[in-house]
């Protein structure tokens, strides 16, 4: 027997016989669960075969019941394939989940960010590249008069102005 065998298909009730060796119980559970919303499903066991009794909630003739048997058979195959794929990818799934959980707990730090720890001793006021030095001060010609103080230049030099020109008030 390779396919679900129809034992009964009348009076709104369908009884199928399944080979337990061909369809694992987990697969039968999965298919039965799909049909619970539109039919009453009762499982039984006789020797090495499992019987599935499906009583439709709405009226159905014999053709409808046989169509339902076909749907159940398709669902069995779908569940069997899903189970096989899950087993084949079990290691990959576990690896992905474990890495995601480890990353979320901070156990794993990407190596690209580890070098940033060397810059932590820098103060936010430090300016090693001289970015905070005004353009006028950086490119000012030696000996020329200082620029007229304006609203932007009249200020005390900050810590980032190291090496810049500071007017003394002499002409």
């Amino acid at each position, binding site marked *: 027997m390779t396919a679900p065998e129809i034992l009964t298909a009348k009076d709104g009730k369908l009884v199928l016989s399944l080979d337990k060796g061909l369809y694992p*119980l*987990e697969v039968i*559970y*999965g298919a*039965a*669960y799909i049909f*619970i919303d539109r039919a*009453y*499903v*009762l*499982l*039984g*066991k006789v020797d090495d075969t*499992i019987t599935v009794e499906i*009583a439709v909630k709405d009226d159905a003739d014999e053709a409808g019941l046989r169509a339902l048997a076909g749907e159940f058979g398709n669902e069995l195959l779908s569940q069997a394939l899903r189970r096989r794929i899950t087993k084949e990818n079990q290691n990959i799934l576990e690896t992905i989940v474990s890495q995601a959980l480890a990353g979320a707990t901070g156990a794993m730090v990407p190596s690209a960010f580890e070098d940033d720890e060397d810059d932590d001793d820098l103060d936010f006021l430090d300016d090693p590249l001289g970015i905070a030095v005004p353009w006028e001060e950086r490119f000012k010609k030696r000996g020329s008069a200082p620029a007229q103080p304006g609203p932007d230049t009249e200020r005390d030099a900050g810590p980032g102005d190291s090496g810049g020109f500071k007017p003394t008030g002499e002409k």
Partner: protein
Amino acid sequence: MSAAATRVFHKKLYKLAAIQEAMEAYADFATLSLERGDEAWTVAFEGADEEFGAETLASEFANYVLAETIQRVRQGAQGSE
């Protein structure tokens, strides 16, 4: 009162805990009794609510037990991995 109905749940296919939970859930709709056999549990429904009928109630009960069993089996499988 509705006529009695019974449902047989094979021990290798259903979980007793699922049956007991279903019996608690359906206690208000009928008088349920559990008989323990060698290979199966049998649940009898007596005095079922007329609105539903014993057969419908028993079928709904069987669906409930099946769904609970499947969930418990799946939870058990996840817990053992």
